[in-house]
């Protein structure tokens, strides 16, 4: 029987040392994320949301505890193997769009597919379809500096989902968007979750994301204080 949990976090601790100061960003966090979930990690600044997201995404190493992603224990993987795992299974959406400025919208969206070695014709078709699905048809050849903030974030979403990852991790995806663009983006991700069954985990302060989420994990001081399923 297939495992229904895509992420299993046990006793996760992350401690940073800034000079003489030690910061416990996470301590002893346990969390499971099921396939197809639409989860919001919420909490005040410094509560550990982004740290948890980075650890689950294999961008950071835990001080203690374990993270299992799609059956792979991340702590045992080399930087190269972690990069391969991210390439194959994770899509990222960052707060500040973070598109590659020298690539067009289509090239940004197909970046992951190109790294995966998907043939040119196939990836072009898939990217065209994906960009159309996020409402960017006709803007394929524009560079990031020729797009609005909302459009750039849509390209970032297209980049995250074009490769059909097992998990999409989004860090404050609506933080830099106006209210209308934020609503449109949330609606888009809800649709992708419903239609494609993609698993989304957000780190967010945004009440609009909270309202859309079917599970809200509340964090404070590096710990999970509340886990609400709707």
């Amino acid at each position, binding site marked *: 029987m297939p495992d229904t949990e895509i992420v299993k976090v046990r006793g996760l601790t992350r401690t940073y040392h800034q000079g003489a100061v030690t910061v416990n960003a996470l301590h002893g966090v346990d969390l499971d994320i099921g396939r197809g979930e639409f989860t919001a990690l919420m909490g005040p600044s410094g509560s550990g949301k982004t740290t948890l997201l*980075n650890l689950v*995404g294999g*961008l*950071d190493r835990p001080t203690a505890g374990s993270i299992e992603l799609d059956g792979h224990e991340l702590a045992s993987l080399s*930087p*190269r193997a972690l*990069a*391969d795992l*991210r*390439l*194959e299974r*994770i899509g*990222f959406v*960052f707060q500040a769009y*973070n598109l*590659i*400025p*020298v*690539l067009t919208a289509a090239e940004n969206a197909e*970046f*992951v597919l*190109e*790294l*995966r070695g998907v043939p040119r014709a196939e990836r072009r078709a898939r990217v065209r379809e994906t960009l159309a699905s996020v409402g960017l048809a006709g803007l394929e050849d524009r560079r990031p500096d020729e797009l609005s903030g909302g459009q750039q974030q849509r390209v970032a979403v297209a*980049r995250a989902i074009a490769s059909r990852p097992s998990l999409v991790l989004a860090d404050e995806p609506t933080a830099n968007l106006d209210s209308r663009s934020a609503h449109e983006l949330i609606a888009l991700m809800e649709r992708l979750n419903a239609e494609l069954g993609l698993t989304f985990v957000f780190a967010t302060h945004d009440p609009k994301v909270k309202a859309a989420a079917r599970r809200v994990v509340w964090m404070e001081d590096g710990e999970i204080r509340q886990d609400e399923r709707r």
Partner: protein
Amino acid sequence: MALLLRLAVRNLVRNFRRSAITMAGIALGLTLMAAMNTLQNGSHHDMLRTAVGLLGGHVVVQPPGAQGDHQGKHVLADSTAVADQLRALFPGAVVTRRLLVEGLVSSPAGSTAASVRGVDPTDEAQVVDLDDQIQTGEWLAPDDTQGILLGEAMARTLNVGVGDKVVFMAQPEGDEVQSRLFRVRGTFRTGTAELDGFIAITTVAGAQTLHPRPDAATHVAVHLADPGETRQATKAARAALPTLEVLPWQEAIPDVREFVEMDKRYSDIMWLVLGAIVSMGVVNTVLMSVLERIREFGIMTALGLRPGRLAAMVLTEGFVLGAVAAAAGVALGLLASWPIVHWGVDYSELAGTDTMEAGGIPVSMKVKGVVDWGRMAVYPAVGIGFAVFASLWPAWKVATLEPVEAIHHR
């Protein structure tokens, strides 16, 4: 690879001015290298041409054991037959016989050590510039067994001029001292102290009167129309004259060849230092470009680009930078070489002399450049190599970035 190349090119174009300045630095360095090499190569060619003509030939035939014999004890007993055989073997070449006898030349005013070179005047005039360097009097007539030409410095030492008599004493073979009188036909100036103060020239027949063997010659030399055929010619001469020592000029006059090689190595070291300085500029450019894009690298890593490929991307930027600069540098270098090849460079006024001495050989101060195509083919690789080398450290920095720190880099 296509993705890395695309990113590398676009990132270079993105900071066009900075990339252009760095490429201009590399290109300028290569332009200078190419132009200076053309000049130096021309000087070496001139020096080797003079040395080959003066000291031997492209192929030198001598008795076994003659190499390194500065006393002139080893001679060819039947030089006319050897010369005729070589003329038949190489119809397009000039074949010269030389008999070198060392001894003492005297005049009423004094005496000095000298090396008398017996030559065939007509043949010799075709392969050396000595007939053009006559200062007083004239070049020897082919049948002149009495006449002698003295280096200008030697004539001054002996206080003799055209028409005066000098006596030459030598002990060419055995214990018997030979002595005879010559009449000065002229003086020459090569610009080399050793040659002008030590060399006297007479005909082979004139020099042979000092020697117990009537048809003696120290060596018979073949001067080829195309020096590139030296190896084949040496092989053919060896087959035709198996009992004699047949050497290509590289082995017959190793000192000059070694001098040229050493001169080239010195230049290479100088260019290496220049390359290292230019590399500092490339390191600066690539590093600046890398430090400005830490966040981008973090994003690419997060998206699944392996650290090694990230480093490869930075090295590709260095490669493209170097390749474009190298192509421009070598093209400009060839362009700058053209006037050096066509008109040459005249240092004589600057140096206050028409010739200078290098490795004991007179070298003209009017140098015509010769393009060294082998080196020109290597220079692009040098430019690219330096640029890629200069990118190694920035590439290593990128490959060892922590993704989470890179993404949040400000």
